[in-house]
């Protein structure tokens, strides 16, 4: 091994030589990056485009949902009911005259739910006090359907309150649920999606930046040229890591600025902690890319693998959008292997809750372990040998 420190003079000169070789490799990599603008595009253009598209495009806040309402027997009671539903910004009421018409509209996708007030609605409302209101939601998108029926229920309770008040009574509900939402009181989905997106974008950048670089050297035969030089494997790996780390941190800084200033996501924790956590994560992502790149030795396979093991798992298994606690136990175990999972937890906490050390420390520790493992394996698997 080349970089091992000795005891006296020669060791020092060897160390100086190592530094010189490393600087040379880093410079060469930087020049290569500047010559082929696709790396710069990955590091700077991609975060901007992706964050912009996703920050606006990914939203779970359903507003102005088209809801059809069929009133079999319109009168004062039903028009008061409709009036109170009109006040909600969550619905866009579409008045329909018959049920078959409503069914047709639902099937063609112009409305997402039907509220049906039958012939005897007003009569039952006044006499038996047990007037049924039929609500049919389109269950294809189960999540939206559930949110929508929650909204309808909320509007319904408000209407009951108004009705009771109009009669001079208060609504008799035994238990009333009062809710308070911490960290994100308006329940803006963008506030948690944007930090999560940063994690996904960084996964992409880190892995993509490095996944191709080793494979490219193998494919072009320049790796063989590098082998006959006195450069050590550690130096080759570091020479690849340093430039791309710098690029990645630049992309990260850009993403955070966009999140705070364009999307108005609150940043409640400290910037230094954010920077430290991002560095850790970036090391992990770069290490993963490097490992793929070393194992694949072929740009096609390296590229495929980078997409398959980074983007999609980070999107689906990181807790960014799907709740990890609700996944089946074996899948929950798998999510522990996804580096983005830890970064998503850190980011959502730093942005929305602040420096909560018990969350940050554990997740950071996991990232330390993962980056060590990836870089360690890369170093072992990467041999200066021809096959």
């Amino acid at each position: 091994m080349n970089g091992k420190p000795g005891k006296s003079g020669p060791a020092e000169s060897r160390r100086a030589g190592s530094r010189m070789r490393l600087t040379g490799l880093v410079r060469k990599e930087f020049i290569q990056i500047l010559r082929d603008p696709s790396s710069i595009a990955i590091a700077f253009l991609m975060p901007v485009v992706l964050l912009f598209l996703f920050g606006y495009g990914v939203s779970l806040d359903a507003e102005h949902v088209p809801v059809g309402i069929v009133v079999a027997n319109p009168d004062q009671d039903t028009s008061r009911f409709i009036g109170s539903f009109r006040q909600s910004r969550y619905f866009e009421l579409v008045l329909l005259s018959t049920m078959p018409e409503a069914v047709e509209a639902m099937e063609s996708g112009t409305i997402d739910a039907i509220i049906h007030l039958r012939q005897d609605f007003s009569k039952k409302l006044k006499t038996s006090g047990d007037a049924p209101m039929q609500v049919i939601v389109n269950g294809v998108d189960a999540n939206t359907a559930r949110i929508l029926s929650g909204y309808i229920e909320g509007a319904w309770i408000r209407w009951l309150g108004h009705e009771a008040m109009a009669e001079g009574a208060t609504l008799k509900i035994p238990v009333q649920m009062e809710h308070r939402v911490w960290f994100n009181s308006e329940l803006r989905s963008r506030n948690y999606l944007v930090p999560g997106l940063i994690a996904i974008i960084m996964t992409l950048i880190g892995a993509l930046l490095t996944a191709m670089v080793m494979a490219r050297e193998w494919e072009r035969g320049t790796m063989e040229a590098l082998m006959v030089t006195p450069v050590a494997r550690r130096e080759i790996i570091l020479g690849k890591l340093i430039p791309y780390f710098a690029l990645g941190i630049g992309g990260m800084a850009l993403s955070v600025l966009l999140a705070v200033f364009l999307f108005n996501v609150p940043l409640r924790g400290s910037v230094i902690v954010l920077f430290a956590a991002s560095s850790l994560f970036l090391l992990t992502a770069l290490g993963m890319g490097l490992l793929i790149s070393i194992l694949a030795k072929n740009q096609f396979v390296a590229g495929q693998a980078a997409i398959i093991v980074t983007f999609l798992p980070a999107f689906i298994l990181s807790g960014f959008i799907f709740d990890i606690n609700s996944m089946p136990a074996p899948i929950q175990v798998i999510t522990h292997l996804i580096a983005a999972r830890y970064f998503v937890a850190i980011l959502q906490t730093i942005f929305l809750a602040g420096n909560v050390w018990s969350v940050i420390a554990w997740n950071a520790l996991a990232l330390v372990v993962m980056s060590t493992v990836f870089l360690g394996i890369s170093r072992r698997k990467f041999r200066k040998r021809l096959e």
Partner: protein
Amino acid sequence: MWRRVFALTVKEFLALLKDKKSRLVVFIPPLVQLLVFGYAATFDLKNIPFAVYNEDSGSASRELLSRFRGSGNFTEVATLRNEGEISPVINRQKALLVIHIGPEFNRNLLKGRTSPVQVIVDGRNSNTAMLAMNYARTIVNEFNRTWSERSGKPGPPAHLVTRAWFNPNLESRWFIVPGIVGLLTLVVTTLVTALSVAREREQGTFDQLLVTPIRPVEIIMGKTLPGFFIGIAEATIIILATVFWFDIPLRGSVLTLYTGIILFILSAIGIGLMISSLAVTQQQGLLGAFLFLVPAIILSGFTTPIANMPPFLQDLTLLNPLRYFMVILRGVFLEGAPFHRLINQFWPMAVIGMVNLTIAGWLFRHRLY
């Protein structure tokens, strides 16, 4: 002509499948992903961790809490003794929800007054928070109904009867898994085609191809067919798994479904080949594929509805073939949509495919370096 196309197709298949690693990355990961994502990608909450701070000693509060425990959606993780314990338990993400019942709860209830129950939710993930609150509200409403019945007091003058069509239990897996069919088919076909021309350019064999009597149309066909067959095979395997492994109902006709698949794969190949003919190196090809795939997946309505996007992005999604395919997949699988109702999804994909294939063919000749 057909002989030349056939020869080129065979050569493409060989280039793609002769390497063991390439063979593996084309076929194995999509299946593993289908299994993992099919189970992971769900918006349904199970085991919502909650903590209880109960200042009331009466039986009513105990009954309400036991409803939470018995619902199957909630798991109690802590019992709190004072108000100061609420904030750490939420901050540290030990509990998503804290239920706080005040000391007057039982007494108020027995006197016929309205008793408040405070629910504190961790809003870091607003969707989870909202769903957890909806679950909690349902439990409270059920409690109210039985309490009113038991105490003989009249309930509210009207009641809601909610039903969900097409997916009666509101399982989000029914929504997500058909979407995964589109997702994985898109990833595989785009990648297979996006690197095909770029690889030849990088190795210099594309120039050789251009000086042979093979015409651009034939090159296009030769490059299209392997991706097409791989895409169809991939989609078929995934659909079989969707129906037989995940038990998602396939209510519409297989013919309608495959019309959609064929048009979708054509449009994906068109985009892949266009990226490929623009790229000089494989890295550029891969980057291009990525820059198309990632937005295409996120802006397709796969996980988050297109209707929630701002208008300009909604218009942008009209260029995304996956958007139409998602509607077809969910329409055919869950709603049993007939052929004629999906016409408006079929033709845009055909247009996208034809336009891109034409541009790609033109670029073959006009981009030479």
